[in-house]
């Protein structure tokens, strides 16, 4: 029992990331009809927003502290981050420590700007081109984006810690009244899951209860008609794309403490997210979320030692296997509508 709960919990954080990326992908596909291979790169950009803010906050002045000496007896050089000078050591220190959550605020305008630039500058010219062309051009863009990041940040992963308060693990088992120590779960993963749930919930509320959301949903159901109604679709497309970019970016920001960001993390997540979208059903928002969590959890179950002993290697391929089977027996995915891109 506890083993099962543990696997479910383990699957949640990866599942959250899959769900968030897949949500944006399917939103873009459903409304704009564009297959965006650069979506993983947006996730990666988000993670690097966290890295950037962390580094910015750590910008330091170097002063000599005559009262202290280093081990050679020379006066000690002390690095003081500017923020500590400006806001005092307490607030400044806290800002550095909390750089990842702070990066959420920082990344929203950045990701929106990136999203708008991408849509206006590139994607909009591809609405009427075949899907293969869309895949290709966004694939090229993904390469470009990741190479730019590589140029500025190097090829190595950059550790970006979570705030101290969330470092470490807690005893989930004891919390729910099971044997103490049976389920140990890191705090940050729980935060990540909660964050993802918040964004997904917020997204759905937005789409459900705002006029904008209504138009978007109508657009996903029947693109031509909405265009015919004289609604300014162009502007909404841009906003949609920016929002999707933002969701992917936020997913990346919060993922930075779980996996140190590196420039090719986007490509790694992209393939899986596409699989998630396809399993959930192209253009289905609930499908993307459900499939994201489902596959995340399935993946962690498959890596249990009992399962791996039974079926060696299954943990490596489970997601792909599920995707292949779903595509063959139910091409529209779990919750997809009939006829989306079938043929």
């Amino acid at each position, binding site marked *: 029992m506890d083993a099962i709960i543990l696997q479910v919990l383990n699957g949640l954080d990866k599942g959250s990331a899959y769900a968030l990326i897949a949500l944006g992908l399917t939103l873009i596909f459903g409304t704009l009809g564009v297959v965006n291979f650069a979506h993983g790169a947006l996730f990666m950009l988000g993670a690097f927003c966290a890295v950037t803010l962390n580094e910015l906050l750590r910008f330091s002045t170097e002063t000599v502290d005559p009262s202290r000496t280093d081990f050679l007896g020379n006066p000690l050089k002390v690095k003081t981050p500017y923020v500590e000078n400006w806001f005092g050591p307490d607030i400044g220190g806290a800002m550095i420590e909390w750089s990842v959550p702070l990066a959420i605020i920082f990344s929203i305008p950045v990701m929106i700007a990136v999203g708008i630039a991408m849509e206006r500058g590139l994607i909009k010219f591809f609405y009427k081109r075949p899907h293969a062309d869309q895949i290709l051009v966004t694939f*090229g863009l993904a390469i*470009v984006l990741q190479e730019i990041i590589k140029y500025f940040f190097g090829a190595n992963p950059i550790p970006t810690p979570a705030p101290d308060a969330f470092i470490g693990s807690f005893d989930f088992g004891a919390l729910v009244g099971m044997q103490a120590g049976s389920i140990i779960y890191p705090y940050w993963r729980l935060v990540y899951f909660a964050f993802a749930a918040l964004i997904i919930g917020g997204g759905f509320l937005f789409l459900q209860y705002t006029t904008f959301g209504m138009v978007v949903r109508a657009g996903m159901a029947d693109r031509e008609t909405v265009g015919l109604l004289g609604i300014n679709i162009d502007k909404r497309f841009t906003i949609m794309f920016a929002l999707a970019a933002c969701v992917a970016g936020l997913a990346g920001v919060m993922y930075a403490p779980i996996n140190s960001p590196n420039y090719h993390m986007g490509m790694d997540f992209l393939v899986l997210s596409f699989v998630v979208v396809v399993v959930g059903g192209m253009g289905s928002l609930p499908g993307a979320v459900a499939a994201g969590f489902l596959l995340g959890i399935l993946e962690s179950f498959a890596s249990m030692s009992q399962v791996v002993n039974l079926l*060696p290697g299954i943990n490596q391929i489970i997601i792909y296997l599920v995707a292949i089977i779903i595509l063959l027996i139910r091409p529209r995915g779990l919750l997809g509508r009939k006829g989306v*891109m079938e043929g």
Partner: protein
Amino acid sequence: MLGLNKRDTLLFAIVIAITLLAPIILNPFPVASDLAQFNAGYPDLMQRFVIFGIFAIGFNILFGLTGYLSFGHAAFLGVGSYAGVWMMKLLTMNVVPAIIVSVIFAGLFSLLVGFISLRRSGIYFSILTLAFAQMSFSLAYSVLTPITNGETGLQLSLNDPRILGVSQTADGSIPMTNFFGIAMRDGFELSMGGWLFTFNAGYYLCAAILLIAFYVSIRIFRSPFGVMLKAVKSNQQRMLYTGLNPRPYTLAAFVISGMYAGLAGGLMVAMDPLAGAERMQWTASGEVVLMTILGGTGTLIGPILGSGVIKYFENIFSKINDNILHDWFAFLPDGLEDFVVAIVYPFVGKGWHLTLGIVFMLVVIFLPGGIVEGGQRIAGLFKRKPPEDKNKTAAASAPSAAE
């Protein structure tokens, strides 16, 4: 000649000439000159040009003709490589059986993957092939270690049986790959004036196979079968109501291109008997997509050009560092020199992927027919009034543009 029309014969003759003279053409700079680092005429690189050329020609038979975009072709190359190394471990260091077995295994594997993946089309097909390739990659990395030797990669060893050969040579080393006794690394160097040309046996074996592969692809493109494949891309609905079954046609194209990939994989191990799982990763599949599109999808020569350009970038362009740039721009005033170098630097050397990404995007946006279309447009400029017939063939051979 050879059952080809005039134009194709000319094209084929040019390709023959270039591949045979490549060791000279690719070494235009004297050894002592500063520009010698841009010489690409060394065996290792020339072999790669040719091998990836074969890979891309095969990919183009699928993508260029039928329009099915596979993101999993590297898996077939990988399977071919593993099969080839196993032949060398078990049977003989002669490359011929290794290459034949590579092609067969890749063909069988692509038959399986194609049979399943082709039940869907469009993006679903792309994702299915992607999933298969990633699965093969993961398995080769983990569970299949007894066959693939996992992370280390499959290598030859002194204890291999090699039934028709020797486990080890008299001096206790692993025997070399050969073609009926001609070692693949053999060759001779020709020094003329300041120039040095290397003629390598391995390269010429690859080149000969490339020419055969290219010839076969021309025949396929010009055959009724090739027309049917174009019909698959154009309108499957019409095919069905015209009494044609599109699925076996597409599957045949898929398997043929899988066999080309296997051939490339086999040649890789024939040149360097080593096979690793990373050859199967989806980014490796992405590379052949880049090559084909950059060169010109659906054109005969495009894939060869594309693979040449990318491999040249990867191996030569990537060596340009900031010292070299400073040398180049030394004629500028100091401040300007630094500025120009700072601007150019991110795009060259280790940043060559960035340039590649940008060029690729530009090609997809503005030049869907790739380098070939670019060449035709330039030729058209010089001819004042582009002959209608030429436009027509361009459109017919690169229909992705027309959609």
